[in-house]
């Protein structure tokens, strides 16, 4: 079986801990050979790019350079990391000036980068490398009756729609259906969750998050399932504020890896189910789980 390197980024070590726990648990259950990238550093996130382009590329580039020594694909579950690393990869490939500067910087740190690393998203790997067939086989405990609103966020399909449709992504839907869940069809799969605006311009950020939550509820979803730590944080963490500003939605926001894990019969405790601010207990119980 193919080997992979895992790039956690800051979120999966912090606010997105549940994502890391469930992701690694699922990988383990699938028998994937995956190892955390040694001595990785901050990807720079989307903000840094607009401030210090070259430096931000060098920062992200360092991770690519370390990965290249191993000559393995890198899995970046965090959407921001996924986007930034891919953007860097692209910039280093296409812009000779930037490559020159960045590689010089890396050389100073005893590193080099040829540009061979592939940065991939868990969805991509699960669907295209592992395959639905294998996954379905491992579904011991299908989450029957669980109605989910699959929410992809903006970063994994924009600007690079490498493994899914830019307007109507479906890979997560497929996985959730394989897990036994029902998926609502809705048009907001890739609409903005508010991003950093929830912190900087709350009146705008909260509204955007509210739109997603409300629509999901309207479509009869018991929970939103996502793949982005920031989306999860915005949609889950601000529901209190949203309740006071608009209305109470009370919509649990899970990671797709959590649902997958449950369906594969892994204990909720290993999947960080309890870490959610809006408790998923009820819906999951409805889904006949645990």
């Amino acid at each position: 079986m193919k080997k992979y390197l895992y790039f956690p980024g800051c979120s999966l070590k912090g606010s997105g801990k549940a994502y890391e726990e469930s992701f690694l648990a699922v990988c383990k259950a699938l028998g994937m050979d995956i190892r955390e990238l040694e001595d990785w550093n901050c990807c720079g996130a989307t903000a840094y790019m607009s401030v210090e382009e070259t430096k931000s590329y060098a920062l992200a580039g360092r991770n690519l350079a370390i990965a290249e020594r191993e000559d393995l694909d890198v899995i970046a579950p965090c959407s921001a990391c996924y986007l930034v690393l891919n953007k860097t990869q692209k910039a280093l490939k296409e812009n000779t000036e930037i490559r020159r500067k960045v590689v010089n910087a890396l050389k100073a740190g005893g590193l080099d980068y040829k540009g061979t690393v592939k940065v991939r998203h868990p969805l991509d790997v699960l669907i295209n490398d592992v395959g639905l067939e294998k996954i379905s086989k491992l579904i011991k405990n299908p989450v029957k009756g669980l109605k989910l609103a699959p929410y992809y966020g903006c970063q994994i399909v924009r600007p690079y729609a490498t493994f899914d449709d830019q307007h109507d992504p479906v890979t997560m839907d497929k996985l959730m259906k394989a897990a036994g869940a029902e998926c609502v069809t809705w048009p907001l799969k890739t609409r903005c969750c508010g991003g950093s605006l929830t912190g900087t311009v709350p009146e705008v950020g909260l509204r955007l998050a509210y739109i997603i939550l409300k629509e999901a509820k309207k479509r009869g979803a018991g929970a939103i399932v996502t793949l982005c730590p920031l989306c999860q944080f915005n949609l889950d963490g601000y529901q209190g504020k949203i309740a006071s500003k608009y209305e109470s939605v009370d919509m649990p926001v899970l990671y797709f890896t959590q649902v997958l894990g449950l369906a594969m019969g892994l204990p909720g405790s290993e999947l960080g189910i309890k870490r959610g601010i809006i408790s998923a207990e009820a819906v999951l119980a409805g889904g006949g789980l645990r």
Partner: protein
Amino acid sequence: MTENKSKKETLPRVGFYICHCGSNIASMIDVLEVQKYAAALPGVAVSREYKYMCSDPGQEMIAKDIKEHKLERLVVAACSPNLHEETFRKAAAKGGLNPFFFQMVNIREHAAWVHEDKKSATEKAKDLARAAIARVRFHKSLDKKRVAVDPNVLVVGGGIAGIHAALTLANAGKKVTLVEREATIGGHMAAFDKTFPTLDCAACILTPKMSAVKSHPNITLWTYSEVSKVEGYVGNYKVTVTRKPRFVKEDLCVGCMECIDACVFKEPKFKDKFNQGLGKRKPVYIDFPQATPKVVLVDPETCIQLKTGKCKQPCAAACDRKAFDFNQKAETKELQVGAIVLSTGFKTYDVARSPQYGYGRYPGVYTALEVERLVNASGPTSGEVVLRDGTHPKAVGIIHCVGSRDAKTNKWCSRVCCMYSLKLAHLIKEHSGAEVYNFYIDMRAPGKAYEEFYDKLLGEGVHFIRGRVDEVTDWAMTPEEEGKLVLRVEDTLAGFVRRIPVDMVVLSTGLEPQPDAQEVRRRFNIGCGSEGFFQERHPKLAPVNTFTDGIYIAGACQAPRDIPDTVAQAGAAAAEALSLIDAGFVELEPNTSHIVEEECSGCKTCVPLCPYSAITFDEAKKKATINEVLCKGCGVCAAACPSGSIRQNLFEDDEIFSEIEGVLAK
């Protein structure tokens, strides 16, 4: 050894003429300098410049000089030989010189128009002139071969273009075979309800022409058939046609359709292609009531008998003319024709390539062709505008330029969408009373009475919003939007983003080349433009001709085109074919190859090289020979003959070697 001996011999007298082409050439090339330069070259007896060499006085001048100055060779530096070679050959002939003692120099397309530095362009012109003058010395006196033209014509594609071309030719007394891939002729037009801008019913004006084709004594109609092979040359094409099995004997079926009622499937069950899948049909079916020929056919994919061989065959039983034949096989037929008209039509843009418009995701989203059937009295809903969910739309949004004028999909304007969108807007409003919104980039209504039609719709209260729709979504932001499809668009006239809630969205898809356009053009040995439509010989002066003589193109296979233009073009193509046929013969370029028998060692190298089997090996003489009528003059054999025993007229080794030396010698 004997190299360049000919140079020492006395040179033939060359006349050199350079054309200003108004300022086309003169503005970038110092015509006088080239004329003076040529005058000083060995063998040049006369050197002149003139404003328009191709004009009558220009040609007269040449003819006169040939006589007065006893010119033995002619060189004209002007435009591309593809344009005026023939003109100046005639001028030479007028002066009593064999037309092939002539060489043309292309200093317009290949120099004046493509360079920016007058000095270097002029130098280039000199080099090319010098080369032609060096080469023309070796030219020989040649005659064009005349071959008879077969008066029969093949028309490929039975849309309105093919129908019109076939009828025009047949009315002129020519025997025409019309080959159509589908089970009926009529093409896209047969699927339309009304036609813009006159709103006369498509069926009413088309079906008479369709039946005229069927009943015309001079037309053989082969539907459900495809051309599989084309051999031969202008005036003498041999065409192989494959006729797919209908499993119903065409000559016996009268189209009573009782077999359809009798079919074991009591209800129509399968997507019906003609109705864009909006309607259903049985395994035994006929596309539409006026289908021509009015002959049913059986679909092997869905017919139980053909799939399993286990069916009571009530259809066959119901046919008192015993027309059914489940063992029918595809048959191949051969035709001899002199000319071919290609009118293979177009394909509409695949909306799956524009997922933001939600086709397939939202049942309320339709393609324009689907709506054509929806508003059509003989369509699946008998003309009633009913949505897939059975409801009637109160508001309809029509999105223009889907798959047109778009860097992401197709760059070109599809030319008909604005007008048919207006037509559909009118029809939908008329049939359903719904509010109709048109979302357009620019309104293009350049045809006769088109702009007036646009005015008329403005008067009818159809809404027009200028802007490219960003997305179609069912996400409601306001109560009014609940349960609706919302079109998000920047209104570029009002200058803000609007959300328009509707019940039905119509995607005005653009026109594309047929998916198999490339194979087809290879089969007929013609070209395609970069966007994939068939390439005309000249965009302005030979719009229905191709680079292969005797093969003409008409309609949307050449470029997006509406019905009036298509019919006009079909007429033009038919006229071109007629002028070829009625001449009775074609003159073939004499640029054929021949083998000098006493030089041939009989090594057979050339024999397999000829794609037209023009070269054969004479077992008695043990030498190869070339049939100059079959030879199309590519010269591959001449280049390959290892003992230099094959000559290609107009491209002999001496001619090319001297041209090489000519362009390089300073």
